[in-house]
Structure formats: structure tokens, C-alpha cells
């Protein structure tokens, strides 16, 4: 039983159709997937393959037309709107390309916001937010407003907000956006570290280099999982094969 319990995110034969009749668009068709703690799964596929739909369903931002989504063993279909909102605030962290930082709040206030909305006291929320900002390497910039931060720093604040508290599931949609390659790499480094510390991660990307940070890569085509990478081999095998 523990094996089943250990799964943080599970999709069972999930379908998502937009519209009906001949105009219906099948965004996802029968996708099953399980992500465990300490595991980062990357989803790759061209535009329109269903990557972002998959992520929205995993985070309870959208509901499947058929099939089930479970987070921490809880079927999302069984939750009402309040229950879903609470799960999103407590258990799920989102990192989007579009940062969605509030310009009128400082960095630390942005990070503390989901905790405060969830009833955490202001002081404790601030302490947790400062810890999260330190984790992403911005321990001293908490009192700056987003416009006073660089693009890379803003992205780090957004990540701190996604990681603050005890998020079991981190969902990232093209999290490196328009960042330069070094800063983008730092973002993935942070995501990887959090997953190594026990979170489950789902990373949507169309860049193979970013998917390289994952433990497993799955390929979506037209809403169907067509392929996935085999388990990682040893360093020795890798090096001996690298001269290919």
C-alpha cells in the first residue's frame, strides 16, 4: 500500500476535450502518469501537443473530461471549489513563464501571500517567506519591489513563492522563459534541489537541455504519450558512449 501512497501526483487515463461535436479538440487522450517524491518528470512536445493542459489538470486548474487526477492520494474530482483552492495554496507550487508577481507588494510580501491567504499569521508567513528567498539566493532583497529587481531575480522570487511552506508538488511551465542560459540554468538548479529534498516535480518544456534536468522525460504528441526515456545508466557507461 505504501507504494501507492508514495505517489504525489497520479493521472489515470485522463482525457481532456474542448468543445463538442465535429469542432471538438482533443487536448489529451488517455494519459496516465505517476510522479513520486524526489522525482522530476519533464514533459516534452511541440506546441499544441497538450503539455500545458496536462500541467493545468495536475494542479487542479482545469478538470478532465474523463479519467482521474490524484494529488497526495486525494482525487481532485472529490473536492469542491474551496477544497481545490486550499489544495492549490498548501500543496502545489506553480512556476510559470509569466511571473505574476504583484507590483505593489515587496518580494517578501509576494512570497508570503499564499501563506497568509491560507490563514498563516503575518509574522510566521514572513519568516517562511524570508527562508524561501534565502533558499533561492535572495536573502537580502526581500524588501525590494519587483520593478527594482532584474528579470532573473524576479524569476527567483516567483520560484520562492512556489516553494514556500511545504509544497509537495511543484509544477513548472517553461520556467526559464526569456532568461539567459546561465540564469535559466540556475532556475532549474533550484527546482532540482527542491525535488531532491523530497518534492515531486513536473516540468513542461520544449527545450531538451532543460528536460535534461529531469529523472524521466515523457514525450507528448497530439495529446498522447508516445514515448519516455529509460532509467538512467551509470556514469561509466555514459562516458564510454560519449565518443559516439
Amino acid at each position, binding site marked *: 500500500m505504501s507504494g501507492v501512497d508514495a505517489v504525489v501526483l497520479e493521472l489515470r487515463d485522463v482525457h481532456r476535450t474542448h468543445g463538442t461535436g465535429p469542432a471538438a479538440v482533443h487536448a489529451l487522450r488517455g494519459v496516465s502518469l505517476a510522479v513520486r517524491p524526489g522525482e522530476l518528470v519533464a514533459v*516534452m512536445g*511541440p506546441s499544441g501537443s497538450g503539455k500545458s493542459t496536462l500541467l493545468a489538470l495536475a494542479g487542479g486548474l482545469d478538470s478532465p473530461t474523463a479519467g482521474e487526477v490524484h494529488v497526495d492520494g486525494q482525487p481532485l474530482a472529490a473536492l469542491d471549489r474551496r477544497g481545490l483552492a486550499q489544495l492549490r495554496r498548501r500543496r502545489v507550487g506553480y512556476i510559470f513563464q509569466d511571473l505574476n508577481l504583484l507590483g505593489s507588494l515587496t518580494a517578501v510580501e509576494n512570497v508570503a501571500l499564499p501563506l497568509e491567504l491560507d490563514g498563516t499569521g503575518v509574522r510566521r508567513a514572513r519568516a517562511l517567506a524570508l527562508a524561501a528567498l534565502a533558499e533561492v539566493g535572495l536573502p537580502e532583497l526581500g524588501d525590494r519591489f519587483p520593478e527594482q529587481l532584474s528579470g532573473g531575480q524576479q524569476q527567483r522570487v516567483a520560484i520562492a513563492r512556489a516553494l514556500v511552506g511545504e509544497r509537495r508538488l511543484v509544477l513548472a511551465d517553461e520556467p526559464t522563459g526569456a532568461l539567459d542560459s546561465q540564469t535559466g540554468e540556475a532556475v532549474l*538548479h533550484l527546482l*532540482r534541489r527542491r525535488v531532491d529534498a523530497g518534492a515531486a516535480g513536473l516540468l513542461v518544456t520544449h*527545450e*531538451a*537541455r532543460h*528536460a*535534461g*534536468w*529531469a*529523472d524521466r*522525460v515523457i*514525450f507528448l504528441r497530439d495529446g498522447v504519450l*508516445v*514515448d*519516455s*526515456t*529509460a532509467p*538512467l*545508466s551509470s*556514469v561509466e557507461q*555514459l*562516458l564510454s*558512449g*560519449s*565518443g559516439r
Partner: protein
Amino acid sequence: MSIRHGLLALLERGQMYGYQLRAAFEESTGSTWPLNIGQVYTTLARLERDGLVRSLPESEAGQRPYEITDAGRADLTLWFATPVSRTDRPRDELAIKLALALTTPGVDVRSVVQTQRAATMRTLQELTRLKYASDKPEELPWRLVLDAMVFQAEAEVRWLDHCETSLVRYRPSVPGRRPPVEVDGSAEAVPPTDEEARR
């Protein structure tokens, strides 16, 4: 690249004997390119013959150090100044394999593409893991070697994606004849079919 220039670059740091050169070579390429000591000595002998290095008297321990000569230094400078030509590299087996898969009856090209992409993606994951594990400043040379392999693997995945997209539109017109399909970058690598070669 030649082992020759690798050894010259190492000797530019100071005189070294065979085993030291081998260790330093492997250290600077993160052991991605293991050398056997025989290769080191054969290369040193050729370098000495060409006047690019000179051997020094043996030490009491029986080790013979080598040092770089002025001619060797000039050769090394030229090497660093000259871009590596793509034509010096071996033929791209993958591009050739895919081109042949398209023209060989009974081959599921899409499956060839997918199998390769999953394998290359896995390599990319493994390379990234190695990079993640080596974050000390002094490991920069090794990280850059890894980065080179990462970018090559990434390019291959992108090319395979491109092939897959091209296959969706691909309809061979006349069976047995070379199809009018464009596979970017591999056009020159497409060998003539046997039939064409015989003409």
C-alpha cells in the same frame, strides 16, 4: 583534435614525463577521453621527431621528462588560432541511418526517430546529472566539456523533432525512387541509393 596538440598544450605548462601527461590529459577532459600510456609515448616520439618537443635526461627514478620547443609553441599557437573544421569529423552515422531508413522498404522511420530521441534524451539527462554534481570552481574545464556534449545532444534532439515533423508530411511519390524530401543539414550526407550509384 589530435592527442598531439593536447600534449603540446600540457607541456606548455612546464616539463612533464609520460605518466604525468596522461594523468593531466584525462584530468582536463574529465576522463571523457581515456588515453593509454602507449599512445602517449608514441605521440611524444613523433613530436620529438618533428622537433616540437625535446626529451630531457632521465631522472634517477628512470622518468624521462619532455619540454616543448619554440617550434612546438608555434604549432600550438596555430592550433588554438585555427577553427576546427566540421569536415574533419567523422560522418554523421545517425543522419545517414535516417536517410537510408526513408528509402529502405519495411523500415518504420518514425520508430527509428523515436528510439533515437529517447536514447539521446537519456544521454542528456545523464550529462546534466554529472554537471549538477560538479559545481566546484576548479571543475570548470570539466563542466565546459560536459556542456559541449549537452549542446550536441540538444541539437540532435531538435533535429530529430524536425525529422518527425517532416515525416508527417512525407508521402513517397514513386516506390523505390528517391523521394523529394528535405531533411535539413543532412542533404549532403544522403548517399546515393545503390540503384543510383550503379547508373
